[in-house]
């Protein structure tokens, strides 16, 4: 037989537990409401004024020396130089991903892209792509990988900005003989050149 005082004590303890549980639930709801109100009032992301656009990236493949046109959806700025820069940042970011078919170092690769009208032409321009020194230093050395990178950049720019007819490359704002010891950076690359399609292995030049 349980004594009376023990039953009263047990009931008081059970009642206290229930009260505390209700109190905790209430406090939790208040905390959630407070956090929700803070979240609503603070802009956590920059407002997106433009909708994503479909772009075509020419992705290089080291195994067969090909450039494959791949669709991506990215948000591009309004002005052409900024569009070109975002395009190239997106392209080179693809190469920095694990299991890339053309592995390149991650990090800032494109310092700036300038567009200059070609003399005597109203609709064509030359893009001057300023690559970072860190990108050039970390780039795999060889004729094939360097050529593929340049053709990928040139082809991607022309595919999405057809007014770009020629491309020149700088490293850290300076002219340089080669990208990583091989591909010639002293010449102007013709963006509309069929060079973009490197024949696959075993093909005829």
């Amino acid at each position, binding site marked *: 037989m349980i004594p009376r005082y023990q039953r009263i004590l047990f009931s008081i303890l059970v009642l206290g537990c229930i009260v505390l549980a209700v109190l905790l639930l209430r406090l939790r709801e208040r905390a959630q409401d407070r956090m929700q109100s803070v979240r609503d009032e603070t802009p956590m992301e920059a407002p997106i004024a433009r909708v994503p656009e479909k772009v075509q990236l020419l992705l290089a493949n*080291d*195994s*067969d*020396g090909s450039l494959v046109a791949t669709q991506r959806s990215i948000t591009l700025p309004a002005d052409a130089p900024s569009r070109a820069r975002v395009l190239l940042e997106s392209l080179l970011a693809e190469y920095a991903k694990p299991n890339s078919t053309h592995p390149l170092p991650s990090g800032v690769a494109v310092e700036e892209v300038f567009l200059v009208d070609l003399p005597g032409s109203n609709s064509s321009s030359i893009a001057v792509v300023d690559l970072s020194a860190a990108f050039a230093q970390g780039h*795999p*050395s*060889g*004729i*094939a*990988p360097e*050529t593929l990178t340049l053709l990928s950049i040139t082809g991607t720019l022309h595919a999405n900005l057809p007014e770009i007819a020629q491309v020149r490359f700088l490293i850290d704002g300076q002219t340089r*003989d*080669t990208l*990583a*010891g*091989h*591909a*010639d950076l*002293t*010449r102007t*690359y013709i963006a509309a*050149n069929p*060079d973009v399609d*490197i*024949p*696959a*292995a*075993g*093909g*005829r*030049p």
Partner: protein
Amino acid sequence: MRWSKQARSRNSPRLLLTIAFASALTGLAQTESPRPGVSQTDAPPPVPVPFVPDSTKPAILTKPQAPSAPPIQLRFVVVLDPGHGGEDTGAKLGPGTLEKDIVLSISTRLRALLNAKGIPVIVTRDADTSPTADDRAAIANRAKAAACLSLHATATGTGVHLFTSSLTPANYGRDEFIPWNEAQATANTQSVRLASDVNTALGNGKLPVLLGRTALRPLNSFTCPALAVEFAPVNAGSGAASLTDSSYQQRVAAALAEALVAWRVDWRQRP
């Protein structure tokens, strides 16, 4: 800007005047410079060299042929240009494995194989030296070579990568000067034919081949049928270490030698 002169215009009066004028200005004797890397038995007969004006270097000229002289029968000479050298190590292919050493090793093997087949070979370097791109092109152009191979190596991709110049083929007039950095445009059509022969020989040797076009110095300054040959690991799993494998190097050199033997026939039958 530097300029080179096409071989077929060597007898033109305009060039003779230019050579005489340049000689008077520079006061240089019309002598031929020693040819680096040419073995005594391989030395081709003396031929006129392209006129390469450059205020920083002495002009290298030979006595022009008289207009009535019979045409010179060019010998079949191959120029091998192992890339990089000296402080320019080229690609770092692995611990202690440098591109300049790999291409020099393959060049030495290929030279021995070609000499054994009776083909004279001129190399732009046969030691750990670093001639400039213009020096390499000058050696090749002076030799009036039937084939010029610029040798490189990379850790990317597999097999052998063959590149012709990305310059658009061009026909220059008899008396026209050709921009030094675009001299290969005059020989690009033949370079593509040479690439076809090399591709076939490498295929016969069961070596994977990648064909393409590129902008590369000194390839664009060669007036001979020219290719950039880039050696990559034998397969995807072998890694760059396979480039140091002597059997792989010998296999590649043998395939290239076979291609150049085939090219000797094709080159003589050129239009």
